[in-house]
């Protein structure tokens, strides 16, 4: 989610900046990569020129959708997440979240290969095997205890598209789903298609309950995590909309750089 005032110049700067940096997971790089504003001349530590690397030409519309989403989150999702948290204590929620993450292994490994990262794909496979066996079908993420497997960078189709040089397109706040650039929205749809939980659901769609049983944990667990992130970002914010947009951009820049 990743700061100079002029959108056009900032775009070119970010492109130069897209090479992976090994040493840090920060998306805001040291001074030379980012265009400095007048504010930074007397402060060498200020390298936060405001870069809008995803253009936002439909901001008024986005702000409208964002407002709508906020109401839905506040009045519908929040109570749901609260109920979910009440019924399932933290260790159970972590277990559910781990199972869902583990089951989405194909999505990550397919994209590691599409990005030609065989080493990461290998580590991802090792992680999947360890968590599926010793971690009892992924309930316990035992791989966190193994140094070589504790920090395998997770990837998805959006990152693959970014690596292939497909531009972001503009920033869009989608109803309910929240912010995705056009590219990432297509990536998001592909991720769902690559997700075994979807396959099971499609196969089971004739039996309504099975479909609900397979999709609900994914949606609830992901929704609950995302709701926590949304709260962290917006509580204490001055302008919710900009806070979320900046965070989205910075986080994506980081994922693309590793």
């Amino acid at each position, binding site marked *: 989610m990743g700061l100079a005032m002029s959108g056009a110049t900032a775009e070119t700067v970010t492109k130069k900046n897209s090479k992976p940096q090994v040493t840090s997971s920060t*998306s*805001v790089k*040291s001074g030379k990569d980012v265009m400095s504003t*007048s504010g930074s001349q007397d402060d*060498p*530590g200020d390298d*936060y020129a405001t870069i809008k690397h995803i253009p936002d030409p439909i901001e008024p519309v986005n702000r409208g959708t964002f407002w709508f989403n906020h109401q839905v989150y506040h009045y519908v999702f929040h109570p749901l997440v609260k109920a979910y948290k009440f019924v399932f204590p933290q260790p159970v929620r972590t277990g559910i979240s781990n199972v869902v993450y583990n089951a989405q292994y194909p999505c990550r490994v397919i994209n590691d290969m599409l990005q030609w990262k065989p080493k990461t794909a290998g580590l991802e496979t090792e992680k999947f095997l360890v968590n599926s066996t010793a971690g009892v079908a992924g309930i316990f993420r035992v791989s966190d205890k193994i140094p070589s497997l504790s920090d395998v960078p997770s990837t998805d189709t959006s990152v693959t598209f970014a690596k292939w040089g497909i531009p972001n397109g503009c920033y869009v706040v989608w109803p309910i789903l929240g912010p995705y650039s056009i590219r990432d929205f297509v990536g998001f749809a592909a991720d769902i298609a690559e997700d075994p939980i979807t396959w099971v659901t499609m196969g089971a769609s004739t039996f309504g309950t099975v479909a609900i049983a397979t999709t609900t944990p994914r949606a609830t667990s992901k929704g609950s995590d995302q709701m926590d992130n949304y709260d962290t970002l917006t*509580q204490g914010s001055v302008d919710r909309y900009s806070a979320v*947009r*900046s965070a989205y951009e910075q986080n994506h820049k980081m994922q693309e750089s590793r």
Partner: protein
Amino acid sequence: MKTRLLLPALLIGLLPSLALAANDAAEARLKASVDEVVAIVKQAKTRDALISDIKPPLQKILNFGVMTRRSIGPAWRQLTPAQQEEATKLFTVLILRTYTAKFTPGEFPLVEFKPSNSTAPGREEVPTTAMYKGSRYNATYRMEDQNGNWTITDVVIEGVSLVADYRTQFDAEFKRGGVEGLLSAMRRSVADTK
């Protein structure tokens, strides 16, 4: 054989240790601060006690002056000294409140420190991973040496810089309503305690 290897080994051994001196100081300062915070969270009985106990160590290590100035960015110079002071105060309240609200008594993060790297003389980035409430986060602390005292000037969580995130927001407010618009937006956020 042994002696022949000794000198180069000594030289090689010495060089990084000289270069590491600054890193060590920043990292040591951060570690001490994290330990202090974790100790408070561990023994706190109530949420209110936790919040009031946790503030002094946070205020010592977080450099609110620098964070406010950089979050506001180029607009900072258009603020009068009195306005700058007010902005810093408001920002401090906002950050402390948001940060302390994240902690629950007895639930503390397990923080793992990775080797820090220097971005410029007197500036360090200390990458860490934190396990908290079942999730794993990458958090990088950007630290600066202010007359021998290392302070945190930014926290980057999963690629999201706190200062950069506020810069985007303050920019939007400043463009919309100038200095007064910016300050009143900050006042509004501070007043909004829910």
